[in-house]
């Protein structure tokens, strides 16, 4: 009964976090612990409540992906006061004194950088930089700072690869494929001179929506270089052998992050050793040729 | 401006499509009862609403106790001493009766608190003083008050501190004779106290009995301002309607043997074994005091209230009626007494309200055409002289009596075998009343059976073939027309003598 750890996720109904929760639970059970998952649906206030509920239920360790990074001091203080171990998953957070909370995962900036790098490479390879009329669609949840970290980093990398800063067009959505689709349509209309598009977003849903809008507007798969983030949507056309705008995607294994978070916490609980400051999970850029070796796809 | 406490000079008011009042002049003196009469839609309520600050006038001037109050807000009008007892009481449902009496002017304690003790004290005093003691539980919630109790609340609201002029807008339309008598006593008392009183009614005998002077309105224009002692009902009617009206209504006797409604040993929460019959072409009047259970009987027959025993046969067939829809399917119609709460969809048009009960009859495969609706109901709208700028007008914007006529039009159009009318002429003017009697008579002649609940004795006596008197959930034996007298009815109703 005492052997319990809890994971709190900012967006627990998203596929990525469902995976992460599965990884977290499986690892905990393997090590003789029970695990609980709490979803707070991007609500900072609920996140604090979840931390106190977890503590009250006797958790020995907490993994948290906070809805926003500024709330780090609040959650870490609550855990520290109760003498409960805490790791931050996915999005790094700070303690009150400015020191980072031990972290498991990858940070948004790093993700965006990888996505942008691959998009830049594909752009160079495509030869569009030599005179083609191209644009870069940056599909952004502008109200979410962790999202902006990703797309900003991706933009930097694409520009570093040679794209002009003018070519970047911002599209705002709310994280779902449907709003990305609705918002991208008019953006394409108001840029009628552009024949080729590079696409990235905060997540695979954003890229998927933009891809569909491009298809609706008559762009063929060859006119689009879309790099996903998450790869769970990108892999579907690959698996089905259908050509699509998705040329590559950053695969983040939610399962691996959850697994690593649980193991890190349990190790410290059992041994009393301090938590390692940073446990970086693998990310891999996948494409139609290698995704099947790296990730599941359903 | 002599000693007039209220002085209305040259008042005019228009609504979209209607000129409701033009150049109205009238005065009320302290200790004087001025009656205000006119057909439905003549503008009586509109003038009163202007005086109480509900509507703003378009032209003219109003003086109250010498001060101009032409553009007073409801608050200013009230503080100046003008109080209106409305035609339809406006009750707040989830606060107590006492609070209802005091809304907008609660007695205060320090800190903005309501002085409940003071409020109860004043309310109890008022109830005593004006003869309503025991009739109203002052802690009952507004929504549980019966129509008569609501009326008492409305009256007491007006009679608090500072009142100079009280206007009663058709106060007796939901009262029985006994309660009306109590109200007249009240009005006489107020007159003695030196208040100015305006009395609006369609019941001319009441006007003759209670008032000192009468102002007649026709289509928003004053057509007469007479001392009661110098005039009579005929003259007033002529001024109102512009022609002579026959006194009372004479029906031809129609007798058939076909029984349309047969009720046997009916029991319900309110009724204890009631049996009676209504034949085709027959009008059976239902008399009784308020609370005798007549409305409930109508609603049980119509499937709105639960029947706990007994049988109901329509044209010989036993019908198991559990909802109004069942009742309509069994060819029964019901025009309720409380038009605002139960009869009308106030935000919808005249045409829709009038045709609601014939939708299914008019439709083919569920499809309706507006034109068919108009064709079906406009004859009744015309015969009932419903005064409306168009068939599309929202019913909520019609005058009180015209609203009542819309409900009647609905059931006239539906032409059921059995028609139950609960207070069919409440708030209806004399001219239209005669017209309604003629229509009801026609329907009876065509073979409809009519159950008519009424608290107006002359109406019962002149219209009914037989009269059944109800008391505490039981009924008298039917009184045949030839034996029907006011005395016989009252005796059974009060339980002083078996009928």
């Amino acid at each position, binding site marked *: 009964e005492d052997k319990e750890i809890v994971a709190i996720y900012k967006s627990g109904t998203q596929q990525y976090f469902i995976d992460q929760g599965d990884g977290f639970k499986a690892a905990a059970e393997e090590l003789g612990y029970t695990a609980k998952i709490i979803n707070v649906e991007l609500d900072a206030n609920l996140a604090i409540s979840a931390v106190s509920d977890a503590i009250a239920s006797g958790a020995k360790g907490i993994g948290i992906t906070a809805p926003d990074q500024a709330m780090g001091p609040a959650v870490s203080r609550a855990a520290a006061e109760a003498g409960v171990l805490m790791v931050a998953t996915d999005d790094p957070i700070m303690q009150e004194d400015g020191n980072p909370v031990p972290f498991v995962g990858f940070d948004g900036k790093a993700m965006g950088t990888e996505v942008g790098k691959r998009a830049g490479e594909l752009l160079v390879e495509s030869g569009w930089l030599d005179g083609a009329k191209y644009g870069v669609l940056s599909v952004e949840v502008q109200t979410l700072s962790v999202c902006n970290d990703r797309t900003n980093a991706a933009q930097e990398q694409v520009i570093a690869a040679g794209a002009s800063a003018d070519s970047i067009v911002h599209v705002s959505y709310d994280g779902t494929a449907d709003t990305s689709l609705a918002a991208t349509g008019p953006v394409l209309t108001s840029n009628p001179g552009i024949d080729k598009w590079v696409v990235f977003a905060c997540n695979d849903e954003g890229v998927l929506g933009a891809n569909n809008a491009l298809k609706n507007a008559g762009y063929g798969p060859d006119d689009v270089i879309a790099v996903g983030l998450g790869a769970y949507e990108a892999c*579907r056309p690959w698996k089905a052998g259908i050509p699509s705008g998705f040329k590559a995607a950053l695969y983040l294994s939610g399962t691996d992050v959850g697994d690593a978070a649980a193991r890190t916490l349990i190790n410290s609980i059992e041994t009393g050793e301090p938590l390692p400051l940073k446990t970086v999970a693998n990310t891999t850029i996948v494409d139609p040729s290698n995704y099947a070796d790296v990730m599941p796809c359903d | 401006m002599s000693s007039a406490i209220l002085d209305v000079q040259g008042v005019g008011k228009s609504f979209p499509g209607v000129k409701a009042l033009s150049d109205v002049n009238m005065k009320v003196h302290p200790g004087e009862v001025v009656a205000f009469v006119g057909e439905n839609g003549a503008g009586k309520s509109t003038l009163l609403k202007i005086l109480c600050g509900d509507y703003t006038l378009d032209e003219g001037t109003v003086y109250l106790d010498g001060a101009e109050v032409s553009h007073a807000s409801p608050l200013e009008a009230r503080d100046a001493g003008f109080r209106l007892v409305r035609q339809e009481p406006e009750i707040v449902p989830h606060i107590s009766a006492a609070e209802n009496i005091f809304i907008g002017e609660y007695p205060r304690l320090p800190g903005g608190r309501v002085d409940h003790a003071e409020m109860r004290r004043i309310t109890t005093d008022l109830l005593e003083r004006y003869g309503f003691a025991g009739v109203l539980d002052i802690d009952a919630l507004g929504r549980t008050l019966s129509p008569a109790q609501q009326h008492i609340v409305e009256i007491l609201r007006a009679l608090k501190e500072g009142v100079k002029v009280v206007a009663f807008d058709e106060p007796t339309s939901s009262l029985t004779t006994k309660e009306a008598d109590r109200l007249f006593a009240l009005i006489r008392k107020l007159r003695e106290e030196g208040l100015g009183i305006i009395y609006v009614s369609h019941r001319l005998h009441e006007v003759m009995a209670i008032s000192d002077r009468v102002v007649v309105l026709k289509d928003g224009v004053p057509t007469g301002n007479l001392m009661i002692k110098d005039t009579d009902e005929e003259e007033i009617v002529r001024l109102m309607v512009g022609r002579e009206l026959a006194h009372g209504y004479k029906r031809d006797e129609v007798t058939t043997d076909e029984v349309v409604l047969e009720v046997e040993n009916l029991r319900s929460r309110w009724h204890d074994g009631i049996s009676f019959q209504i034949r085709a072409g027959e009008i059976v009047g239902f008399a009784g005091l308020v609370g005798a259970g007549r409305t409930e009987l109508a609603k049980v027959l119509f499937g709105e209230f639960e029947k706990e025993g007994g049988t109901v046969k329509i044209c010989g067939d036993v019908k198991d009626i559990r909802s109004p829809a069942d009742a309509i399917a069994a060819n029964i119609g019901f025009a309720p007494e409380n038009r605002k709460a139960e009869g009308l969809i106030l935000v919808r048009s005249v045409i829709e309200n009038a045709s609601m009960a014939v939708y299914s009859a008019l439709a083919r495969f569920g499809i309706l055409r*507006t034109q068919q609706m108009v064709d079906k109901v406009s004859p009744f709208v015309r015969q009932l002289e419903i005064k409306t700028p168009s068939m599309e007008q929202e019913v909520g914007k019609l005058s009180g009596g015209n609203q009542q006529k819309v409900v009647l039009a609905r059931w006239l159009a539906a032409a059921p075998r059995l028609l139950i009318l609960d207070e069919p002429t409440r708030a209806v003017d004399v001219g239209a009343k005669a017209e309604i009697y003629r229509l009801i008579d026609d329907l009876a002649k065509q073979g409809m059976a009519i159950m008519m609940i009424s608290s107006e004795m002359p109406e019962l006596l002149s219209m009914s073939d037989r009269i059944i008197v109800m008391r505490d959930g039981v009924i008298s034996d039917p009184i045949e027309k030839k034996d029907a007298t006011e005395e016989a009815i009252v005796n059974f109703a009060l339980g002083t003598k078996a009928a």
Partner: protein
Amino acid sequence: MPTEDKTVSITEQAAPQMAPEGPGLFKRITNAVGAENLSLVIALIIMVALITTQTEFFFSPRNLMNIGQNMAVVGLIAVGMTLVIVSAGLDISVGSIAGCASVVCALTVTQMGTVIGGVAFGMGIGVVLGLINATIISILRVNPVVATLATFSAFRGVAFLIAPGGRPIGVLDQNLAWLGSGRLFQTETFPGLPVAFIILIIVACVAHFVMSSTVFGRSIYSMGGNPVAARLAGINLTRMRYAIYAISGALSGLAGVIVTARTSSGQPASGTQGLELEAITAVFLGGALMAGGKGTIVGSMLAVLLLATLSNGMNLLGIATFYQLVAKGLLLVLAVAIGQWRLARAEKQQSKLAAAGK
């Protein structure tokens, strides 16, 4: 006879309301749209004028068709919501119903390979969930707001539970995709009418006909305006409620199917969240009364168009999210305020006319 005179004032014509001023074309437009909706048209015109001064692309056929396509999901839900609100109810669970339908549709298409089945089952689950709403309201006598707030939560949970592992279900079927993004009557120069938009138009026309010309539709107005009076006029409120919530459910289900078709995946939540507020906004903006008894399909559809145009225009102009949020708020207030102002003016004018002796 004086009596006769009076009856002449009754207009025999029940048909279209008069506009207070203006002849010919203007009046004909007014009649078609309904005087009450004119303020929405005015707001739309002002907004389009503003947008076109900033970008030449607004009127490109492709953009217009885009707007049409993007209206479909909210539009279908708003049609059902109009029925519900006019009947003095409310349905907060519509987005969750759409989520369930999206999942059911995706499962049907991927497991059984039938697109027609996907549409049918998607709408079917919508009907079932709508009937559950009606049951809670009618039988358990829970008020519609609480009842559908409850099922808003419960149905969302159900959507996740139906989807294996709670994950979105990829559907790559081309025929299904056609429903979401296909076009009809495409030519060289014309980008074609979006299929989803055509579906919306057909549904809206049928609903308009039902609301204005059938016993069922008129009864919805009656029961919304005064349930007691409606019941006493023979309307079976319970049965009506079942039908109304079932229709709202079916249309929410259809909207969910279109979300699946558009995004090529069955989404338990994404794409269907917040739809309830959008649809409710549209219905009230379209002139419905909170208390029930008033509201039209035309009004609701104009409101959906207005909202879709605003969002399209702001995306065309590349306006940032924060300003988009503010602009949307201002537009809503403006559109309703124009309507109120016109109403007040018209009443004043008509009273003046009446005062002047007709």
